[in-house]
């Protein structure tokens, strides 16, 4: 590990934040900081960050302690058209009530700092207990210097019928931005919540955003989780998301990555109940110099559950895709069904994909499979379409769109689906 340099970097990152405000959870912050000072940020030889040089990006792009002051008059342009939703907006790492609204009265939202000060029982019970701080260097960094977070709570037997849109807006107009945010969400027994996370930035200065998220999905509950990363700014984003599932819960996740400089998503599903069902889908359509890295973990801890993972990617230009999919099936998690598939198309000669499935199965009565492919567009299919009078560029768009759109199938909300479909079609030039 490249610790000498990254030690200074850690100090610089922390020094650039307003220490006076970072008081909530002081003990865990100090502990994380101590660990981080020993271990440093991951260098080029770190096994989990071999292909994703975040530390180098930070060294290169973040100089001095100055951080931008946001001056956005509105965040309307980042909302999703026609989507009736609860909106929770963070600007430069701070929760911003003026850009937020709650239209579902059954949903409780509390700023994390306030919840900690008031000894909110949800915090006592779950905060930093779902996501293991030491599992990832950027989770450590986030624990040491999160600026604000939100606690979301859905009571028992309650279906929140309007989705929650969490907007992370970073205003880098006047300078670089460092933001570190957290989410703790608890969906009590027999309830439903749909969440959409979206990141956007303005300005041309670099943005570094870490987010740590803990989602607790209780018995018989259902969570829809959708992440949209289409940020045209100079952003490096590292998410650590852990979703904990109890008996008979249902989970659907969809992660769409279209833009950004360096994106790392650590998504972990803890299947800690029986008769659970988890579907997680991902799509990365990358161009330019974007690097998107999806590290996923499914941890089957109890018997009789089902997980299905499908991640697809199309890489153009000099884009880089990284996929790492771990499946753990613990010794007593018998009768587990776990499936994983990662499929990639490289459109240009300069694009790359690194894909690695990792299965560790200790139980003996399970059904598990995995597969990954990477290749070019099917030439025979291209010729077939062209031989019917379809231009080469349209044939390419048609095939790539068909490849990509498969992962949209499980999205329930029609407005959201239309929005995602338009993003995908535009990215692949399927404008006919």
């Amino acid at each position, binding site marked *: 590990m490249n610790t000498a340099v990254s030690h200074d970097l850690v100090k610089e990152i922390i020094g650039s934040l307003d220490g006076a405000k970072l008081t909530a959870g002081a003990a865990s912050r100090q502990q994380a900081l101590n660990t981080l000072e020993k271990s440093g940020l991951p260098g080029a030889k770190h096994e989990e960050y071999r292909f994703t040089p975040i530390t180098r990006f930070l060294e290169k792009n973040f100089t001095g302690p100055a951080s931008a002051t946001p001056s956005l008059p509105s965040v309307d342009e980042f909302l999703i058209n026609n989507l009736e939703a609860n909106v929770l907006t963070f600007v430069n790492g701070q929760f911003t009530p003026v850009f937020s609204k709650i239209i579902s009265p059954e949903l409780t939202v509390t700023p994390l700092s306030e919840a900690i000060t008031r000894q909110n029982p949800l915090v006592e019970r779950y905060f930093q207990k779902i996501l293991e701080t030491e599992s990832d260097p950027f989770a450590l960094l986030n624990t040491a210097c999160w600026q604000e977070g939100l606690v979301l709570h859905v009571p028992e037997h309650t279906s929140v019928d309007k989705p929650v849109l969490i907007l992370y807006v970073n205003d880098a107009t006047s300078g670089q931005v460092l933001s570190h945010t957290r989410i703790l969400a608890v969906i009590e027994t027999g309830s439903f919540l749909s969440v959409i996370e979206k990141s956007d930035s303005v300005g041309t200065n670099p943005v570094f955003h870490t987010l740590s998220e803990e989602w607790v999905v209780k018995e018989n509950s259902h969570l829809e989780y959708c992440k949209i990363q289409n940020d045209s700014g100079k952003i490096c984003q590292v998410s650590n998301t852990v979703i904990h599932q109890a008996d008979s819960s249902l989970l659907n996740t969809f992660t769409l990555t279209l833009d950004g400089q360096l994106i790392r998503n650590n998504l972990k599903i803890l299947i800690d109940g029986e008769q659970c069902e988890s579907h997680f889908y991902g799509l990365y359509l990358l161009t330019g110099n974007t690097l998107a890295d999806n590290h996923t973990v499914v941890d089957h801890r109890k018997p009789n559950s089902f997980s299905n993972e499908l991640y697809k990617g199309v890489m153009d230009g000099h884009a880089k895709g990284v996929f790492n999919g771990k499946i753990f099936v613990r010794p007593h998690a018998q009768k587990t069904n776990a499936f994983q598939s990662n499929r990639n198309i490289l459109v240009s000669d300069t694009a790359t994909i690194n894909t690695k499935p990792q299965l560790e199965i200790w139980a003996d009565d399970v059904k598990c499979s995995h597969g990954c492919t990477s290749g070019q567009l099917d030439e*025979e299919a291209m010729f*077939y379409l062209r031989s*019917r*009078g379809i231009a080469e560029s349209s044939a390419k768009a048609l095939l790539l769109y*068909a490849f990509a759109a498969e992962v949209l199938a499980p999205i329930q909300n029609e407005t959201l689906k239309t929005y995602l479909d338009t993003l995908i079609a535009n990215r692949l030039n399927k404008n*006919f």
Partner: protein
Amino acid sequence: MLNIKNLQAKVGEKQILNGINLNVHAGEVHAIMGPNGSGKSTLASVLAGREDFEVTGGEVDFLGKNLLELEPEDRAREGIFMAFQYPVEIPGVSTINFMKTAINQIREYRGQGSLDAVSFLQLMKEKMKLVEIDQSLLNRSLNEGFSGGEKKRNEIFQMAMLEPKLAILDETDSGLDIDALRIVANGVNTLRTKNNAIIVVTHYQRLLEYIVPDYVHVLYKGKIVKSGTKELALELEAKGYDWIKSEVSVA
């Protein structure tokens, strides 16, 4: 309409067409027959513009244009259609969407406006009857999970939609049972007019009982070695290809 002069082509280092000469006029049906490996499908592919083949000599004139210079999509837009021997399965693209895109791009090339949804649907319904194909099949992903007969009927459906000036049917009879063969042939016969032409590439005479050709050509070792009328096809059926081979080697 189509004028092929001394056409030569190879795939990789292997020379497959060794100087084909063929004239096709509007209103005619030509059958190209020949033993396996004689170059029949290569000829069809070269005319449609498949890039695996390299044309090493000769000329192809189609309605006054140098066909060999055109991209595959422009050949289609000029009026060439090839029914594939092995139609490609394309998951996620429905036949309907695919046809809508194709028709509108062809119309744009010809300086015509796009078809509106109603006219397109009308056209589709009319052509579906022709090949007895069900709309549910056309809503599905292109050829995915289709039976052999359904794939071939879908090819003829596409031909009906695009109304080509020259249709090339590449081994359309392969893999068809007698009922499917009859449906496919009926479709083709209905589309036959005095303004268009059809080239039927086939190994067997069977299809030619239904699509009766004006001319029959025998391809052997990349050359047309014998031409005649429909009686030639019957003779081939009775005697096999060996007598052609020996005739060629004697000559």
